[in-house]
């Protein structure tokens, strides 16, 4: 079955997210949609899936025009979609999520749960997608949640499957498993639209490639195009492939400035989310924490700021024990904190840029004195930061929620880095940020290090970790598997991220990994660092 999009245009207010896009998906192909953040990929697919209505354009299936008024129509037409932000109800079980909308029922709408479980088991066996149908989705790791999403689409007999950035939440090994599933689907004659901005993946799996920039198709390519070519198409200019940075100017015998000792942190259900973690960071050093999302990194960062109670262990900064202190005391002690989810944890969307820039300083001079805020000081500060950090905003009074993701992130970074710090903790510092902003933020982080600050970077993007870290700690299930130097191979770290202790030399376990040169050990410029920008998270929409 072939699918064709013709001249699709979609506007959000004055923003043209899709501008006359043409796209053709042939039967049994894996069609890659490549484009940087905000290019309009998700928007296009949401239109195809009926979540948005296009302002112009047509959708044709096997040559006949198709009207898709909503997901219902899309499903009926055999289109399935795994969304960038999973569409799963967290409080439902796997089986409930999968049957939702397509329930098998007895009389009076009675749910046939047994049947649903059987269907799930059947599909998961057929494609090697293992899930427990009775597990609560909220309890599942993201990788498994993604399997649930895929099963959801397959069980509805999707002939065209859209995968919107499915690899963002996977370990390299899981990515390989996903690719295997995708190939077997292709064998079964189904078409797949695969969205990503990771060039290596594109080259590994795609049959054809369409590149989108700023809402328009800027070109098509085949997998044998070079990465640099693809990157150029995608970004529209020559991209810098490295983070500029000198090796850390610290000797191994320098006293650590920050240390975490035997830290255990419990999650909501009382399980140890962080399980006896210890590490030190010396002044002027960046420790990068790598790991797949959901392995305790969030809890670790929150415990360091004091947002979560510590069950056991100590957190020490410059000799002072921070463990029992409140977040405010820790901030006062000089901890700078960039949380991973800016709109959830860092910004007050309805408040102005100026106010957000003093969110954790509002009550200290010069902004607040004896209970009164000095509005002039707040404004002056904002003018200065907006200039210094190149925050693109209509004015400092604009509600921060209306800024683009990258600029929102710059507000957070500007705020945290504009006061004297003694420790910087940054989680996913460039999530959903464009290339320019990313370079800028990375430069600021390195500059912070170069002033002799200990820095902790938490990122699920290996490229970012490679680009920034002086040492790399890998977290898996709340534990630190190992702390390794930055010239460790990707395979090695990948295995650590998957919980394996690679004793022998790392060997690629899949031929597809061939695109990933095993000898990529250059500490400062690992191959493929150009796609560091693609650490895309959940900020859009």
């Amino acid at each position: 079955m072939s699918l064709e999009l013709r001249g699709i245009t979609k506007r959000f207010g004055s923003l043209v997210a899709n501008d006359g896009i043409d796209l053709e998906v042939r039967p049994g192909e894996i069609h890659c949609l490549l484009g940087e953040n905000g290019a309009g990929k998700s928007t296009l697919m949401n239109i195809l899936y009926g979540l948005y209505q296009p302002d112009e354009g047509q959708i044709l299936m096997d040559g006949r025009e198709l009207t898709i008024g909503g997901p219902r129509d899309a499903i009926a037409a055999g289109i399935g979609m795994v969304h960038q932000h999973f569409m799963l109800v967290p409080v439902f079980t796997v089986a409930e999520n999968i049957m939702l909308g397509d329930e098998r029922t007895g009389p009076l709408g009675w749910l046939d749960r047994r049947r649903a479980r059987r269907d799930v088991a059947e599909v998961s066996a057929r494609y090697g997608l293992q899930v427990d149908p009775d597990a609560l989705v909220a309890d599942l790791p993201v990788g498994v949640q993604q399997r649930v999403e895929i099963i959801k689409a397959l069980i509805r007999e999707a002939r065209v499957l859209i995968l919107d950035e499915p690899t963002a939440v996977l370990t390299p090994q899981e990515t390989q498993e996903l690719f295997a599933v995708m190939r077997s689907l292709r064998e079964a004659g189904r078409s797949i639209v695969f969205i990503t901005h990771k060039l290596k993946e594109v080259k590994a799996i795609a049959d054809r490639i369409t590149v989108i920039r700023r809402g328009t198709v800027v070109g098509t390519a085949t997998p044998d195009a070079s990465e640099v070519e693809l990157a150029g198409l995608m970004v529209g200019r020559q991209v810098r492939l490295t983070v500029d940075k000198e090796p850390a100017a610290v000797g191994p015998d320098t006293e650590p400035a920050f240390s975490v000792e035997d830290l255990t942190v419990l999650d909501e259900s009382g399980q140890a989310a962080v399980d006896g973690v210890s590490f030190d960071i010396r002044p002027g050093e960046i420790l990068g924490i790598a790991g797949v999302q959901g392995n305790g990194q969030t809890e670790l960062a929150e415990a360091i700021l004091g947002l979560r109670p510590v069950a056991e262990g100590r957190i020490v900064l410059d000799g002072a024990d921070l463990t029992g202190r409140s977040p405010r005391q820790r901030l006062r002690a000089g901890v700078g904190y960039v949380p991973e989810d800016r709109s959830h944890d860092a910004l007050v969307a309805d408040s102005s840029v100026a106010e957000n820039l003093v969110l954790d300083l509002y009550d200290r001079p010069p902004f607040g004195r004896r209970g009164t805020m000095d509005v002039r000081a707040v404004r002056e500060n904002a003018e200065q930061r907006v200039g210094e950090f190149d925050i693109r905003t209509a004015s400092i009074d604009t509600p921060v929620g209306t800024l683009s993701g990258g600029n929102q992130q710059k507000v957070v970074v500007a705020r945290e880095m504009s006061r004297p710090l003694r420790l910087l903790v940054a989680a996913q510092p460039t999530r959903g940020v464009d290339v320019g902003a990313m370079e800028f933020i990375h430069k600021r982080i390195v500059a912070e290090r170069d002033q002799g600050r200990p820095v902790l970077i938490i990122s699920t993007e290996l490229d970012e970790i490679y680009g920034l870290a002086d040492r790399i700690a890998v977290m898996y299930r709340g534990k630190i598997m190992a702390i390794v130097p930055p010239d460790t191979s990707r395979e090695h770290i990948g295995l650590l991220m998957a919980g394996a202790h690679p004793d022998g030399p790392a060997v690629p376990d899949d031929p597809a990994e061939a695109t990933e040169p095993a000898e990529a050990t250059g500490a400062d410029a690992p191959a493929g660092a150009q796609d560091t920008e693609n650490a895309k998270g959940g900020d859009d929409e």
Partner: protein
Amino acid sequence: MSEQAAPAKDAGTGEPPEADRFRRLAAQVVAGPPWVVTVLAVLLAMLVGAVLIIVSDPEVTATFGYFFARPSDAITASWEAVSTAYQALFRGAIFNPDATATFTDVLRPISETLTEATPLIFGGLAVGLAFRAGLFNIGGQGQLIMGAIATTWVGFTLDAPGIVALPAAVLAGLAGGALYGGLVGWLKARTGSHEVIVTIMLNYVAFLLLGYLIGSEAFRDPDNPQPISKPVNEAARLPHLFGDSLRVNAGLLLALAAVVFTWWLLNRSTLGFQLRAVGANPNAARTAGMSVGYGQTMAMLISGGLMGLVGVSQVLGTANANNALTQQIDAGLGFTAITVALLGRASPVGTVAAALLFGALQAGGREMQAAAGVSIEIVTVIQALIVLFVAAPALVRGIFRLRGEGGGSTGLLAKGWNG
């Protein structure tokens, strides 16, 4: 639900010719900015009120019985009924053209409106402040009762000159309401108990406690057979502003001071900054080192204090002739305050406007009842509809075919139960 503040399309510089200015105004009206929507909402609500007036008047409905025979009768009678009623409303609330007698008579309607508005300003501020901190304070009744109890007790026990007695009584009322409101915030911060449940329950507790106290030795007025406490001393009462025959009293000044204070608190103080952050995004507030529990406790404390001032104005002001505690001292103001805050979009200045509008409807509604025989319940319906229409600008714009856009925009932060 972010507020889509329709920017007042900036007029260019330079003096435009008259016609141009007019055209621009017309264009602005058609675009349907908030003030136009509000005016239209009031009109629309009055229109519905008019329908109710017509159907409620048996003489008028009688004429509809032979509508097809002689429609003019029905139309004249309807017009007659509605215009009589609304003229009375206007007379009672704003200006009485028939007031031949004295200057005071001319001012009386305005004085009545202001008197009615005074407690609504306090109450609206209280609810609005809590809203800004992400809390829904339906405990106004309880807090104002506690304020009234405290102010009354000080008012009749403290035998001192006015300069001491009045501030002391006012402060007592403030404290009474604040502690009762603060208790809710404290419980929420400590145990996570939902403020909606706790405030509802505390309303009943305060009401029952009030009944008990009125009958107790400490409060009961031995000279009065009625269920009423001892009256507060003359010295502790809020003085009339413009002579004894106009009811508007110093409570209004207190209310305006409260407006200024609340505005300052929300927009210029560090505490207010914290309250707004806690209300808009508690997670971000926590991450920025603010204590959400402290913010919530303070918000409820101040909100309760402002509600306590409603109690103060009830007891020490001219709302009631008794200047004493009675079982019904709250006069439903705890709930009316919620609507006022909603109409005022939880902003101090908006609250004043909303309180004046509601005060005028209240004062005028009485005149309407007395002079035109229209049930006072109509005023309640009109008030509800105004708030409803203002909250649904799309509906108003749809009805009047205006162009502007934007969904519901009450500017209130309390989103769902999860805050």
